[in-house]
């Protein structure tokens, strides 16, 4: 393998706003589920920038992140298997937007989203998946097709088109100056990056050294080859958890659930916790 250090491949980290530049209005953006490293600092920065008409793919579910982006009118289309605040109840802005028709909903089921990204990762046009036949999930997805298994005998199976995001965005524990990102066991983050055209990452801290040089670390590392920009954002998942590092801020999530129950309360939440930096 070529040593990237000799090829001028070092990627200095940038400010959060610079790192997020590839996420333009109308972007097909993929983000991870609520316990895998949700980039909440980046999400708040995108809302401050008033990004519009995102097609958000939440792999395979979402909580606060999708609800915030929906409430802040950043999303045109949402493709996911579920949005909820878990123990804190329904996701209020998601629920309001779907019942009022404010966003287009592409309801999926968890493994279908994983499979669609795996197809993109392999560079093939589709992936087959069991289940689905006879469900209304399949009925309302014009882009999914049931065919007869060409290797079987009267065996219907569903084909899912590849999901090729323009940008994958997530938060991870650390990155080095070559753009290598340590993701540990959150392997879906690697699938997202492999599938997407560009990958933007926020991290807790910079690692002094080469993550690929240590075999223990290398096994859990996404190579910088796939990564376009890295920004440091300490406690970048807050108030959601970063697995193995910090827990969810339950008190804050309870406060969010209470405020976001009404449009007025949600606006107050944005003012207090998203736009506050603007005032400075």
């Amino acid at each position, binding site marked *: 393998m070529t040593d990237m250090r000799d090829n001028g491949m070092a990627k200095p980290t940038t400010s959060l706003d610079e790192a997020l530049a590839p996420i333009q209005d109308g972007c097909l953006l993929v983000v991870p589920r*609520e316990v895998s490293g949700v980039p909440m600092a980046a999400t708040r920065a995108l809302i401050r920038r008033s990004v519009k008409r995102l097609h958000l793919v939440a*792999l*395979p*579910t979402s909580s606060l992140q999708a609800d915030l982006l929906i409430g802040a009118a950043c999303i045109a289309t949402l493709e996911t*298997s*579920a*949005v*909820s605040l*878990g*123990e804190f109840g*329904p*996701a209020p802005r*998601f629920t309001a937007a*779907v*019942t009022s*028709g404010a966003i287009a909903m592409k*309801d999926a*089921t*968890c*493994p*279908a989203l*994983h*499979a669609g990204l*795996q197809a993109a990762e392999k560079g093939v046009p589709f992936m087959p*998946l*069991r*289940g*689905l*036949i*006879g*469900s*209304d*999930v399949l*009925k*309302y997805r014009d882009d999914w097709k049931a065919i007869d298994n060409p290797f079987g005998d*009267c*065996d*219907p*199976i569903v084909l899912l088109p590849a999901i090729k995001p323009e940008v994958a965005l997530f938060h991870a*524990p*650390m990155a080095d100056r070559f753009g290598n990102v*340590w993701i*540990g*066991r959150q*392997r*879906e*983050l*690697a*699938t997202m990056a492999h599938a997407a055209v560009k990958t933007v990452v926020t991290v*807790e*801290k910079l690692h002094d050294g080469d993550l690929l040089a240590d075999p*223990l*670390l290398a096994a*859990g590392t996404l190579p910088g080859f796939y990564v376009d920009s890295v920004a440091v954002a300490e406690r970048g998942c807050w108030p959601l958890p970063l*697995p*193995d*590092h910090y*827990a969810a801020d*339950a*008190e804050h999530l309870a406060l969010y659930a209470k405020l976001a129950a009404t449009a007025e309360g949600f606006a107050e939440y944005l003012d207090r916790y998203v736009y506050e930096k603007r005032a400075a």
Partner: protein
Amino acid sequence: MRSARRDFRDEELLADVIARLIGDVRHVAVGNASPIPATAALLARERGHGKPYVSLLQSRKHNFFTDGARELFDCAGQGRIDVFFLSGGQIDGQGNINLVSIGDYAHPQVRFPGSFGSAYLYYVVPKVILFRTEHSRRTLVPRVDFVSAPGTSEPNVYRPGGPIALVASRCLFSFADGHFTLESVHPGHTVAEVIENTGFDFERPDTAPETPAPTPETLKLMREVVAPQLAEVYPQFAAGVFGAAVPSPFQVEPSAASLLPHNRKREETSGENG
């Protein structure tokens, strides 16, 4: 919810019922928003001294997957998951479940979170246990408005899995041949009340037995051993149901001394791998 005449809570009874339904299997997986099934799975593991394997999807400790969130579904597709749990905003008499919406799908009156993995796992996991703590005509309906996953499939559709039972707050139903049968009525409830509050038709024997109450040994195990394990994933539920037995759930879990995994202090093992 604690009854004046009983020394157990409804959640404890339901978890005990589910633990019996799990039976002798190798691997039980529990999805999102399923605190009672998670209690049952951990209880089964304690009784089995580490068997079955239990995978709680949102847990860091009770989850051995290392190949990302897709590994659970790949495991299930191969038949490596024996038991899973599903619920529904609506469940109908044919075992169809609705996790999406009420009313017209394009203009719903009510929206639920979404189908999660149901449109796949309901087909491929051999023993799917349905649970619904609200036992009413609003939730147990003649026909669901949206089929997240069907109870049964045409003979030529690949379907090694499906529902075996529905655990509700008033009774236990079994599921076979496309319909539910009343198996037992929970203590404090009656057959007449079950009929009154169930929106679909079901088979029933002339006399339905009472669901056995959890034994003192089971209650002790749930409260003292299972509850602290549960608190990692369901802090609100663990504190609400099991109360003081649970350590403060909102603490940051590992020592954050280093972000490097091999420098982290070893945590207590959960015992799931023997």
